[in-house]
């Protein structure tokens, strides 16, 4: 989903403010929250992708107004209700104050991936374009790389596909690649010439850069 969580490249959040000698948890409830998610997620939630998506489904104005562990709190309650572990009424009655998500869990599942051979489609050095995908469900393809041209730097091997896994729509394991993008490709000619990005992208996010790719050339008879 094109959520407010997809922040790479946005303006307006001010300087980065670091705190000296910061405690692990600033308040006791943060530690309790962290531990509850650790304990419940493994037993009762399907996977981390589902939890991340529950955070993304927090209504955007509230997402921005919440701290990190407040977002965990809201996301955890959303999943507990959706999985029937507790009712919304119980959460209201006890004072936990659940927040209704901006959209239901399976509002949109990723399109069913085709059965694929395990052979990777890309090799190191291949030129690719990040596809211009705008799924309304979970995705790990940030907006700032969509449509941009990059180079495969490394093949990390096969990983469960977050976009389908978050929606219980299958694992669709596929290769994940470290992809290099030049800062100028992402941010324009003002960006420093030498600077680059590395981002880990699933194969379904990528297509050969037909103008330049070795991968597309290989496919020619």
């Amino acid at each position, binding site marked *: 989903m094109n959520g407010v*969580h*997809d*922040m*790479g*490249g*946005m303006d*307006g*959040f001010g*300087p*980065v*403010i*670091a*705190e000296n000698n*910061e405690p*692990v*948890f600033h*308040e006791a*409830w943060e530690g*309790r*929250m*962290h*531990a*509850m998610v*650790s*304990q*419940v997620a493994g037993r*009762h939630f399907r996977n981390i992708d589902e939890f*991340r998506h529950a*955070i993304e489904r927090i209504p955007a104005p509230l997402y921005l107004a919440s701290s*990190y562990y*407040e977002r965990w*709190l809201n996301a*955890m309650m959303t999943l*507990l209700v959706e999985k029937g*572990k*507790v009712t919304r009424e119980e*959460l209201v009655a*006890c*004072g*936990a*104050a659940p927040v209704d998500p901006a959209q239901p869990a399976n509002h949109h599942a990723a399109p069913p991936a085709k059965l694929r051979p395990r052979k990777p489609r890309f090799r190191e050095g291949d030129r690719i374009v990040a596809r211009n995908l705008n799924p309304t469900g979970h995705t*790990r393809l*940030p907006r*700032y790389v969509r449509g941009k041209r990059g180079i495969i730097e490394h093949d*990390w091997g096969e*990983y469960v596909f977050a976009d389908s896994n978050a929606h219980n729509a299958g694992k669709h394991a596929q290769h*994940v690649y*470290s992809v290099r993008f030049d800062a100028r490709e*992402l*941010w324009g000619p003002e960006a*420093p*010439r*030498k*600077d*680059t*990005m*590395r*981002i*880990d*992208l699933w194969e379904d996010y990528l297509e050969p850069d037909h103008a330049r790719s070795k991968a597309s050339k290989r496919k020619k008879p």
Partner: protein
Amino acid sequence: MSGSHVTVPTGAALRVKALETLLEQKGLVDSAALDAIVDTYETKVGPRNGARIVAKAWTDPTFRKRLLEDATAAVAELGYGGPEGGHLVAVENTPQVHNLVVCTLCSCYPWPVLGLPPVWYKSFAYRSRAVRDPRGVLKEFGVEVPFNVEVRVWDSSAEQRYLVIPQRPKGTEGMSEEQLTDLVTRDSMIGVGLVKAS
């Protein structure tokens, strides 16, 4: 402590307490187990782990090689592993490349080697700006990278979790692994700091 200062619980504190009570009644959480998890992150897992890894990499070339090839396996030799550490990758700063790690979509971070992330790493300011204006962010941390050095930003968008191996400072040639460990800061292993000789 005078005992007269009473902290009024924030809204979140009351909500989390209410949730914990409800989940415990339902048998979904166990308070003693929660205590143990909190204790682990407050006392056992932290950037000292990463500092030991870096110091070892600086002093043991064969370990450094293993770390760069397969960081998950290499840090397991030192007993480190666990949640958010299943696919660790070590990236090395050199005179030509300065690495910086971010997670723009949430706040992914290599917990077993650095502990839980600081608030600034999870902040909207860092998540939004580290990819587009990394040099500006670095300046706010007091780090100026010359333009003939590549700033390489790693966005932790999949399962890989990144640990920066900072450059070993000059003037530390005679130091032991333990002394070097004391020099390595958390920020230098995220890429927003440099290691200084003292």
